[in-house]
């Protein structure tokens, strides 16, 4: 039972990181922008939140966790949105290729984050590991219901960002299927030419969706830094592989935010399962870690085989829009 609880908890924490990344990317892709810079954006969000709270905690003798938390949130969202802005400017205004720009953003974001993260570790001296204990504790405070036996441990023992991810997913679902603005956004992603003719501002929609989406993805990086690794930094490429999994999750969820909720937890379960299966030696563990990727491949193939209309990617995904070229 304890084994099951800890697997469940690991799955949810892992899932929350990639859920943020995937939700942001869903918003972005619904506007027709395929941003392969998600890992870079999550890196930017994570490091900005860490730097913000680090300097705050270093500047006062008794840092207030709540203030540190707010600073981290604002820094992470803002920096990640800035990354999205670079992507938007290059692909929307300058019409650069989206795949190539996204990959560049991944290299750049990873470079910035690991450079400053590594430097901060040096700056912190001593054990060579920075730590923002106060802020991280604010992120990791469990809900008051966590004490309620097994159910408390299973469902209420996480920091608030894990719940925020679910709230954002539900919000995005309603936004994109019920609100006029959301429907306009989807129209842009499906057929920008038609949307433009209907009087929807394509450029503004794409910019907004990409920047906001990047901001949400960035929170995934923040959650990773503050909660998953408890307010520390390591140049181990952890965020990058999670970022690519977030991209995979977007496909797995067939571009629907509600699917991303259970999809992310399932990924977490698959990812950590090897740890809890008895009798695996190290080499078979490595094979087991392939599972999330293989499952995504299967879903990808299944989606293309069934060819159902509502499960397809946005029709203009990855294509630039230039009014004069219609």
């Amino acid at each position, binding site marked *: 039972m304890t084994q099951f609880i800890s697997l469940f908890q690991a799955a949810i924490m892992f899932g929350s990181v990639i859920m943020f990344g995937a939700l942001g990317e869903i918003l972005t892709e619904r506007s027709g922008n*395929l941003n*392969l810079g998600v890992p870079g954006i999550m890196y930017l969000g994570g490091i900005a939140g860490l730097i913000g709270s680090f300097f705050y905690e270093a500047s006062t003798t008794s840092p207030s966790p709540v203030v540190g938390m707010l600073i981290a949130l604002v820094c992470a969202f803002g920096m990640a949105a800035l990354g999205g802005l*670079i992507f938007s400017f*290059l692909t929307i205004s*300058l*019409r*650069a*290729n989206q*795949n*190539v*720009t996204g*990959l*560049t*953003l*991944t*290299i*750049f*974001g*990873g*470079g*910035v984050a*690991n*450079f400053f993260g*590594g*430097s901060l570790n*040096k700056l912190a001296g001593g054990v060579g590991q920075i730590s923002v204990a106060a802020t991280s504790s604010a992120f990791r405070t469990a809900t008051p219901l966590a004490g309620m036996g097994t159910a408390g441990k299973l469902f209420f023992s996480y920091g608030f960002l894990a719940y925020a991810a679910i709230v954002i997913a539900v919000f995005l679902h309603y936004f994109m299927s019920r609100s006029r603005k959301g429907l306009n956004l989807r129209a842009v992603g499906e057929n920008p030419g038609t949307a433009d003719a209907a009087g929807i501002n394509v450029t503004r929609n794409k910019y907004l969706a990409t920047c906001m989406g990047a901001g949400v993805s960035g929170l995934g990086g923040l959650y990773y830094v503050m909660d998953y690794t408890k307010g520390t930094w390591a*140049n181990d490429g952890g965020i990058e*592989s999670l970022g*690519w999994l977030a*991209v*995979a999750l977007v*496909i797995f969820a067939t571009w629907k935010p509600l699917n991303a909720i259970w999809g992310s937890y399932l990924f977490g379960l698959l990812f950590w399962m090897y740890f809890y299966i008895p009798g695996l030696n*190290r*080499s078979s563990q*490595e*094979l087991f*870690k*392939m599972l999330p*990727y*293989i499952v*995504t*491949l299967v879903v*990808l*193939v299944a989606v*293309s*085989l069934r060819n159902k209309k509502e499960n397809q*990617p946005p029709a203009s995904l*990855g294509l630039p829009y230039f009014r*004069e*070229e219609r």
Partner: protein
Amino acid sequence: MSNSAVERGEPLIHVSKRVGIAQSKAWAIRGAALVLALMISGLVIFSIVHLSPLKVYGAMFEGAFGTSRRAWVTIRDAMMMLCVAVGLAPAFKMRFWNIGAEGQILVGAIATAACMIYLGNSLPTPALLAVMMVVSVIAGGVWGLIPGVFKARWGTNETLFTLMMNYVAIQLTSFAVSKWETPIGSNSVGIINQKSNAGWFPPIFGQAYTLNVVIVLTLAVLMYVYLKYSKQGYEISVVGDSENTARYAGISVRKVYIRTMFLSGAICGIAGFLAVSGSSHTISVDTAGGRGFTAIIVAWLAKFNTFVMILFSFLLMFLEKGAVEIASRYNLNSFVSDIITGILLFCILGSEFFINYKVSFRRKHS
């Protein structure tokens, strides 16, 4: 009065597609982007280390080409990058987004390492090298073939398929490492055949990496000819421009997809062969080291011209080696190279806009 441009509501900036642009002008724009990138990077470096950017670039040059050993390492790594970019060129020309070079390199590397370990003592060097090359070609080719077949048959999205194949390959590599690790428990394979040097590239003209250069440059020339002058190369470019046109012209689009992806993966597999047999003589999950992604940008920016790719490969390698040098000299960490690479690529990507489009501002009045 009411005729002024502002009142007529003309936009401030007017963008129109260029019909054609002189090659010299296009290269001038790219050159300007390069200068801009170096200036921005210089500013970034200056704000971190407070040293004159010129001095920093001097140090970078020394790091990349300062001694003949360093120069050869730079050349070796640039060749590896070029090899991957050459492999990606046909796929991307076909508008097939092969993001999976990383994985194709790794399976080629695994195949090579397996040959070195299991056949190292039973075959003479030339035969062993030939076997390793063939095996790595098959491994990489099959890894590329799988997404190609799915795309051709069912239109499965290749960007995401190849991306996932990378991670499957990475786990396969971890698996191989855990099988072959020496000493046991070290979680690394160590230098393979350190005593016998079996399966290592033999030095030619006293240089260990001559064979790398020969192989990759040969591939680059062959690929140039293949894409530009062969029937298959022509089919690739027709499919890339418009699938429907290709179908109308009687080209079997499926066949082109599958054939080209095998070719693309196979050459990336050779890159894995070079990485293991021709340079590191070991294998780890870092054997591909992100080259599969960077090479996409190299291939794209060079417009699939393999000779221009040589230029970009060297430029990026210079930045990487140079940044490692300033990092160790000024006690920074080497990720500064990724930052500079990112800035450079952003600038060049942005500059393409000014090559393809003409920007004119609203006149005062007309």
